[in-house]
Structure formats: structure tokens, C-alpha cells
């Protein structure tokens, strides 16, 4: 029996079918990431779990208890909001102790829990400040602290890093992973950033238009995408997709073929499996991305290599690929194994 289970969960906004019968089982201690493009329903699903959006169909079961109809305050879940949603008129300490005070817990106990959490998050010096006196990163940590203090059954994160600058994002990402392990927590995390998904998740749930496209560990999704959408969503730069005829009969029965940029190798023009013309070279320092316009079809592929290249735009070039790394997709976009 899993810890948190979604059973055929549905959501309608008027006539719009936002969430279309989702099934998902989450084990205790897992770090689950919901990822997908804007509008796919990931935030909606998270809010439905939290109780902030109504569940129109199906059931939500937490630790054996059906919580589908329960008010958010009674579900024993904690949420970290994208905009932090700190109480502007309360100090950091009051923000973090609010839930416990509402539950009328023993003040000494509250004091202890708050200082422990503040300590973990380096907030001890800021306990008496109000949110407007804090930087974005500090507010972020208060929001997390507010959730930790409650020791909830599940932590919910709604794109918590999107309002931070790049450097802070990387740092906080690591901190969140660390906290999850330390607290033995169960976490559900929503993001549109697949890097966060890949680095934080035990399992990733890829969503599109209200349905789950695939669930699996990050590596599962990377190496064995079940359809075109997942194949192209995970991985940066995107997987190269070409019509099957480019590879001739090596494609054997597929409509389209996908190969990741790092599985292409550049060879001299005239050699290799595919011919093309260099369109652009992006030298990033740690790697080089070469955009090649393929002969015969209106397609551009990206080749990734670690070495610098002396190639220039308009140079002719040949491409060799690793056949074992070829992903084949049928006409419906499903992977052919």
C-alpha cells in the first residue's frame, strides 16, 4: 500500500477538462517531481493534493485515509508557495510558529521546533525580522522553515525556485535535496525546469495537457522515453528528431527516429551516415554545440561534443551515429522497442 495515492483524479474548470483521470502511487520517503510545459496541469494537481483546489472526480488517499473532501487545514500537508506567501505583518519567528500556535501546541515545544528549523536553515539571526526586511533567498528559506516546523506527512513545493536568480537557484536546490534526506520526508515538487527535475527527483512525473505521459526515475526517462513528447522534454539540448528516411533501412519500421546530441559524432564530409552543412557553432567552454542542416530534409540537428571544433558555418560535414542509442517512434509518437 503506497503512502499517497491518486486514484483516477479528475478536475474540470467549467467545460475545460484540466486533469483527466490521473493515477499515481507515491511511496513514503520519495521525492517526486511533477514536470511539464505551462498549462499541463502540474500546479493544479499539486493544489488538488493540498486541498486548495477541489477534486471533481476520483479519490485521494493519504496513509490509508481518504482525504478527498478534507479541508486543507486538516490534511497534515505543508506547502511552499512560489511567491513564498509569508505573512507580511508577522516576524520570521511568528511566521514559522503560526501553524503550531493555531494547533495550540505547548509553547516550549514550539520554541524548540522553531529554533531547530531556523538553525537548519541559517535563519537564527533573522527570527525577529519581518519579511520585507529579508532578501528573496531568505524569504524562500522562511517559507521552507514554515513547512518543516510542522513535520507534515508530505511536503508540497510549488515552483519554489523560479523567483530566485540563477546562482541562488543552484544553491537552494542542493539545500532542498539535503533537507529531504535529513528529514526522511516525502516530497512532491512542481517545476517547469527539467534540470531541477533530473537532479532532485527519485521519480519524475512528466505531464502534458492534464495527463501523465510517463513516470520513472530520471535516468529511465532519459534513456527510455516512452514517447516523443517525453523524449524531447527531458534533456538539454533537445533530442534530435528526424524522419525515418534519413537513416534509410536502419530505422526499420519507424516513422521517426530520435538521437541525442551527444550520440552523434562528426566526421569528414562524405563519410558517416548522414551528410549536412554546418549552420552555427556554439562554443560554451565546457562543450561545443554544432547545428547542422541535414541534406535531403528540412531538418536541423544539434551535435554535442566536448572538444573544440574548427568547423565554421557553411562547412560540409558528415555525421556518424551510435545505432544502439537510436530511439524509434511510430506514427503516433510512441516508442518502438
Amino acid at each position, binding site marked *: 500500500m503506497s503512502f499517497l495515492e491518486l486514484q483516477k483524479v479528475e478536475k474540470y474548470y467549467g467545460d475545460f477538462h484540466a486533469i483527466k483521470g490521473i493515477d499515481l502511487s507515491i511511496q513514503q520517503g520519495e521525492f517526486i517531481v511533477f514536470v511539464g510545459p505551462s498549462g499541463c496541469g502540474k500546479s493544479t494537481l499539486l493544489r488538488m493534493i493540498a486541498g486548495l483546489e*477541489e477534486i*471533481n472526480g476520483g479519490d485521494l488517499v493519504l496513509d490509508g485515509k481518504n482525504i478527498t*473532501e478534507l*479541508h486543507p487545514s486538516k490534511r497534515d500537508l505543508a506547502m511552499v508557495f512560489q511567491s513564498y506567501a509569508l505573512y507580511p505583518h508577522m516576524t520570521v519567528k511568528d511566521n514559522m510558529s503560526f501553524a503550531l500556535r493555531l494547533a495550540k501546541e505547548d509553547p516550549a515545544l514550539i520554541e524548540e521546533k522553531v529554533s531547530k528549523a531556523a538553525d537548519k536553515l541559517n535563519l537564527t539571526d533573522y527570527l525577529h525580522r519581518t519579511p520585507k526586511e529579508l532578501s528573496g533567498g531568505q524569504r524562500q528559506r522562511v517559507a521552507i522553515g514554515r513547512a518543516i516546523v510542522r513535520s507534515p506527512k508530505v511536503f508540497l513545493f510549488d515552483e519554489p525556485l523560479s523567483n530566485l536568480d540563477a546562482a541562488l537557484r543552484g544553491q537552494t536546490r542542493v539545500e532542498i535535496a539535503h533537507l529531504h534526506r535529513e528529514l526522511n520526508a516525502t516530497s512532491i515538487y512542481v517545476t517547469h525546469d527539467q534540470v531541477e527535475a533530473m537532479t532532485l527527483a527519485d521519480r519524475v512525473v512528466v505531464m502534458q495537457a492534464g495527463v501523465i505521459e510517463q513516470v520513472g526515475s530520471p535516468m529511465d526517462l532519459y534513456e527510455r522515453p516512452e514517447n516523443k513528447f517525453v523524449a524531447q522534454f527531458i534533456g538539454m539540448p533537445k533530442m534530435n528528431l528526424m524522419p525515418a528516411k534519413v537513416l534509410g533501412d536502419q530505422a526499420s519500421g519507424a516513422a521517426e527516429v530520435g538521437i541525442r546530441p551527444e550520440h552523434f559524432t562528426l566526421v569528414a564530409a562524405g563519410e558517416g551516415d548522414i551528410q549536412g552543412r554546418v549552420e552555427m557553432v556554439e562554443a560554451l567552454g565546457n562543450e561545443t554545440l554544432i547545428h547542422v542542416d541535414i541534406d535531403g530534409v528540412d531538418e536541423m540537428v544539434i551535435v554535442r561534443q566536448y572538444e573544440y571544433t574548427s568547423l565554421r558555418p557553411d562547412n560540409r560535414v558528415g555525421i556518424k551515429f551510435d545505432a544502439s542509442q537510436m530511439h524509434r517512434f511510430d506514427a503516433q509518437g510512441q516508442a518502438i522497442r
Partner: protein
Amino acid sequence: MSSERSQSRTLPRLLMSPAVITLLIWMLVPLAMTIYFSSIFYNLMQPDNTGFAGWLNYEFFITNPAFEDAIWNTLLLLGSTVIITVVLGAAIALLINDAFPGQAVVRILLISPFFVMPTVNALLWKHMMMNPIYGVLAQIWTYFGFTPINWLQDLPLFSIIIMISWQWLPFAVLIFITSLQSMDREQLEAADMDGANYMQKLRYLYLPHLARPMSVVIMIEVIFLLSVFAEIFTTTGGGPGTQSTNLAFLIFTEALLNFDVGVASAGALFAIVLANIVAIFLIRAIGKNLEN
């Protein structure tokens, strides 16, 4: 779906109901009664005269020689006040828009007249400013060698217009200043870089931006000014004759002085219809703003 959904519907409705019910009553009851009264004979001086009057009350109200004057005066009052307040208001707002020493104090001084009670406003002007012998204006006139004007006697409507304009000018100024403060600075900077002088900026940037608040000010003033009453009551009593009687005062006269409720009600409906026409436009403007 469940109890949760129906619970989340009744609570908001419950919370809104006192306000909605109260306003509903406030809107419907007087309206219904006014319509009713306007269609019957109801004169407190002639209690025996009752019964359905049809359109007679309306006829009577309209054919009252004072009616034409009242309508004319009302429009004149409205039009003049609106023009004065909007034009002067915009000018003053533009004048004090950019910072200068004492801007905050100047603003406070300019706003004060709006908060003066209408009756105080009326008497202030009647006695202190407009009195032909002791008044300040009289003093100014004699200083320049002119005979002082007997404002309330000779120019009753104009005097009222002055009083009302003085009171509502701050409103216009305040609205326009608020609007100017929210103007996009970068737009003005771009114009500066394009080499625009003040007159050009005025014509192409400031005035178009003020067009919206101007229309709002005009509409709000029209709605409130239709009911100008206290000033007339306190100073000219509608006179001399009917020179300063407006629609509101005429209705008041019919109802509380002539005790002809039927006719007065007919008149009141006139005023309501007039106000509603303007209100429709105003509501649309507000509605557009709510979308944002």
C-alpha cells in the same frame, strides 16, 4: 459534488446578503414609490383629491413656467461648473505636477475647499466674499475703482456656479494629479529625446492621458451636481424669482413647500432618468477598469 462545494457557495452568499438586500431595498422602494406617486393625485393641501392621474402630474410639472427655467438653470449650472473645474483643474494639475518646494503644502491648500460643508460654503461666499458692501470681492472691486457687484441679487445663478466650482475644483485637481502621477515616465523621457517642447508634450502626451480622467470627472460631477441643493437653499432660495432654481430645488419646492407630492414625484423621475443616462456611461468606464 459534495458538501464541501455547497458549503463554499452558501457562505459567500450569506456574507453578501446584508449589503445586497439593503441596497436592493434602498434602490427599489423609493423608485417604486416615486413612480406610484407620480401617477396619482397626492397633494397634502388637498387631501380629498385622490385617484389615478395618468400623465397629468408630468404635464403639470412640465407646463409649470418654472420648469423651463429650472431645466435651463440646471444645464447651465452643470455645464459651467464642469467646464470651469475641468479646464482649471487640468491647468492647475499640470502646473503643480512636477516637484517644487512646498508642493505638499500647496496640495493641501488646494484640496481644502472640497471638505467644507455645503452650507458653510454657501454662507462663506454669501457674506464674506459676495456681500456688496463688506465683502472681500467688493473691496477688491472698489480698490480698482469699479462699483461692487451685488452678486446674489444681480447674478444669482452665476454666484451659485462660483460657489460650486470653488468646491469641486479641488476634486478635479486631485483626480488629475493622481492620474498624472501614474503617467509613464519613460514615455516623457522618450519625447524629450525626440526633441519635444512642452506644448508638444502637452498636446500629444499629457492631454490624451488626461482624457480618461477628464471623462470620469465630468460624469461624476454631473451625477452629483444634478442634486445641488444646499447652496441654493441657503443663499438665494431659488431666486430672485426662478433665476437660480434648478431641477432639484424645483422638486423640493413642489414637494415640501407646495406639498404637491404627485407633481414633485413626476419631477423626481425626470431627474432620475437624467442621472441614469449619465450613469450608464460611467458604469461602462468603471467596468472597463475593473477588467484590468
